[in-house]
């Protein structure tokens, strides 16, 4: 007797332990995706502008960054090591040496206090460590002409540093005239650099005749004023349309990835659902039991083909075909892209859709089927009028499961999408066709590709987790909805 009781208790304890562990897992998955995403919110927001004083017809009019005399005012990762006066190569040379090189000068200093400027501690560029969104930054810029300058006007030109886009910066950026030289009449200047990231403004010429006079020239400031908290700024940036996490002025806008994933899902499920439904109707209503017995294992074979292999198939079969069709018209280097991915996804999801839909159709009670048949309805009418409405909940559940599976499938997108984040564009038929066949990139493959060479616990790592969380929340919602439909289907029939 005691052995039976012991046995009872053991099984019960094991059952409860497994149940508890499952609950723990669920909670852990949730909480860990959240906690690791916190590294995303430790990001900083670099910015950088190139500013130059130019003669009216400068050859660098439109490319300030090419102007060798331009000053770079920037906060970015490469500028994080403290600039050392002695070491820094871009320190301004002496007045006489400068005269031999150029006639218009912009210079900057480490300090942001106009009273602490020193003529012997001026630099061409100034790079500081990037800051959080709550912390502002202020650069000073001295601008003057040298005695060898001959024209009677000069222009201050500015443009964002290469790869910096002010739209990806949460600060209010302003270029402001702090002080004009004595005896020069200028209107106050204040430029909103986010609204006018690139521009030029004419200034009356003012010449510094000795090194001591340098500091009496035009004094500008580039101010980055915080507008929001880092958390909020990170979230705002996350919804922007450009994903380029490895460039100097990193952009973490996941919109193109999300839209690509949604489009691929839409296309693949849109193709697979009617096909799968047709095959399921054939299987459950028309096929003889013998055929059905053969069909299911064959479907399972298709379901068992690993997705890596399906990806290779796409590269071998679908991509070259698309390349032949559209390659010349759209200058494609390969057929990899959204459409190729969606087509292979259709193959991937088809067995799941067929077997789940067939289960749903077979769960419809035979009395309904026979009643409709007895009335004299044809098979097609029975399907439309009786079977589909009766199996609606089960079919919905199948469709939702298919959506969640396609959304999270990684290897097919990785291999077939081409790997370039692209915003979908449906403004014209050509653009729409381009969107379909040109390379793209989805959420899951971005995680898979970039996690391999990311520094752990860096903001980039955090953003990959934020992407994972986005995917998880999306699929979770769809799965829960599917679960509800499945329950309803069980209750109904």
């Amino acid at each position, binding site marked *: 007797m005691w052995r039976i009781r012991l046995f009872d208790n053991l099984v019960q304890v094991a059952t409860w332990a497994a149940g508890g*562990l*499952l609950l723990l897992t669920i909670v852990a998955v949730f909480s*860990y995706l959240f906690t690791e995403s916190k590294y995303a919110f430790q990001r900083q927001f670099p910015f950088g502008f190139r500013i130059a004083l130019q003669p009216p017809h400068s050859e660098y009019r439109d490319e300030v960054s090419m102007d060798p005399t331009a000053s770079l005012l920037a906060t970015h990762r490469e500028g994080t090591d403290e600039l050392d006066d002695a070491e820094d190569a871009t320190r301004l040379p002496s007045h006489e040496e400068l005269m031999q090189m150029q006639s218009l000068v912009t210079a900057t200093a480490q300090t942001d206090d106009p009273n602490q400027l020193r003529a012997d501690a001026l630099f061409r560029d100034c790079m500081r460590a990037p800051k959080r969104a709550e912390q502002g930054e202020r650069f000073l810029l001295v601008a003057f002409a040298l005695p060898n300058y001959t024209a009677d006007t000069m222009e201050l030109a500015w443009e964002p540093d290469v790869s910096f886009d002010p739209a990806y910066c949460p600060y209010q950026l302003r270029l402001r005239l702090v002080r004009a030289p004595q005896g020069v009449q200028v209107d106050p200047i204040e430029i909103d650099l986010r609204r006018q990231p690139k521009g030029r403004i004419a200034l009356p010429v003012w010449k510094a005749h000795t090194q001591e006079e340098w500091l009496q020239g035009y004094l500008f400031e580039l101010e980055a004023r915080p507008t929001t908290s880092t958390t909020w700024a990170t979230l705002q940036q996350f919804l922007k349309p450009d994903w380029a996490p490895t460039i100097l002025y990193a952009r973490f806008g996941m919109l193109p990835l999300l839209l690509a994933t949604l489009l691929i899902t839409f296309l693949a499920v849109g193709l697979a659902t009617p096909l799968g439904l047709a095959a399921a109707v054939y299987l459950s209503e028309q096929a003889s039991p013998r055929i059905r017995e053969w069909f299911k294992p064959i479907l399972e074979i298709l379901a068992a083909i690993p997705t*890596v292999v399906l990806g290779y198939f796409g590269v071998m079969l679908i991509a070259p075909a698309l390349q032949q069709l559209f390659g010349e018209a759209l200058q494609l280097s390969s057929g990899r892209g959204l459409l190729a991915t969606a087509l292979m996804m259709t193959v991937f999801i088809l067995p799941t859709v067929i077997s789940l839909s067939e289960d749903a159709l077979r769960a419809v009670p035979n009395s309904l089927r026979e009643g*409709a048949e007895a009335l004299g309805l044809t098979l097609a009418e029975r399907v439309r009028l009786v079977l589909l409405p009766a199996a609606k909940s089960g079919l919905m559940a199948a469709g939702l499961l298919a959506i969640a599976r396609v959304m999270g499938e990684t290897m097919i997108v990785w291999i077939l999408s081409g790997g370039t984040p692209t915003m979908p564009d449906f403004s014209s038929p050509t653009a729409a066709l381009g969107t379909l066949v040109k390379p793209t990139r989805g959420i899951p493959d971005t995680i*898979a590709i970039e996690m391999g060479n990311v520094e752990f*616990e860096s903001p980039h790592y955090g953003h990959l987790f934020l992407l994972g969380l986005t995917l998880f929340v999306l699929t979770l919602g769809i799965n829960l909805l*599917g679960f509800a439909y499945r329950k309803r289907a069980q209750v109904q029939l």
Partner: protein
Amino acid sequence: MIEAARSKVVPVAEWEVLAARQDVRRARKNALLTSIFGAVGLATVLLVFVLVAIIAYKGAPTISWEFLTQPPREGMSAGGVAPMILGSLLLMLGAFLLATPLGVFGGICLAEYGERSRLMRLMHASVAALAGTPPIVYGLFGLAIFVLKFHFGVSLIAGWCTLTLFCVPSIVLTTESALKTVPAALIDGGLALGLSRWQTLWRIALPYALPGILTGIILSLGRAVGEATPVLFTASVYYSTAEMTLGWDTLRQPVANLPYYLAEGYRQPGVVPERLIWGACLTLIILTLLLNAGAILIRSRMRRRYL
């Protein structure tokens, strides 16, 4: 129940009107639609055969005794894929050993206490949601918790844990639904004979549901072995010459495996010749198909024994 279902669909009177119509168009439409259904079904089967045939055609010339038993040589450009096959099998074995008890007992827990409390209903919904959660999310989670938090590093054991998490939800669900198919008469009979509740479960319900449970386990392992993403950042290495032992050291080392080999083969084009890639594809498919064949076999044999 049927009344309820009928009220959801079109009223019977409309069907009668439709059915009374005797025209050729109805028959034609029916013939057209039914042949479309059949054609799509046939096309699906054809698709499967074409895919498998292409892989077999491309991969078969590569498969040889040397390919299956030798490690890669000459900077991955020659030799075989033995370490990858071994690694895949090892990963699967560990996941099998860890996921089976957890999944089966979890399934029992759901089947026994399923609808009783709000907590259990929540658990059921969460397991269903986890079963549909993308493998890449498991990969991320495994990286965060096993590799970094528990300091396992990228290792076999971290891969086992991640794959276990990946397999358990689907095993739980199939176990639960298999247990639900056990006829109430059998359970009542057991209880009436004076068996305790857990004896009934262990001696009557579990054996009856065993084919369903085993099929579920094998199918989810088959999915796990072909899936590159859960082990991508948790357990994988392109190729390592470290010796496999049965000790702790091997557990703490990353392992090569077939899906990762294929993924890396794509990421670094030109390193592995196409011949070897297709050979590895075929090997991987054969591995998953063997598992599936096992599942089908078990299902049909067990069904014969119990029905």
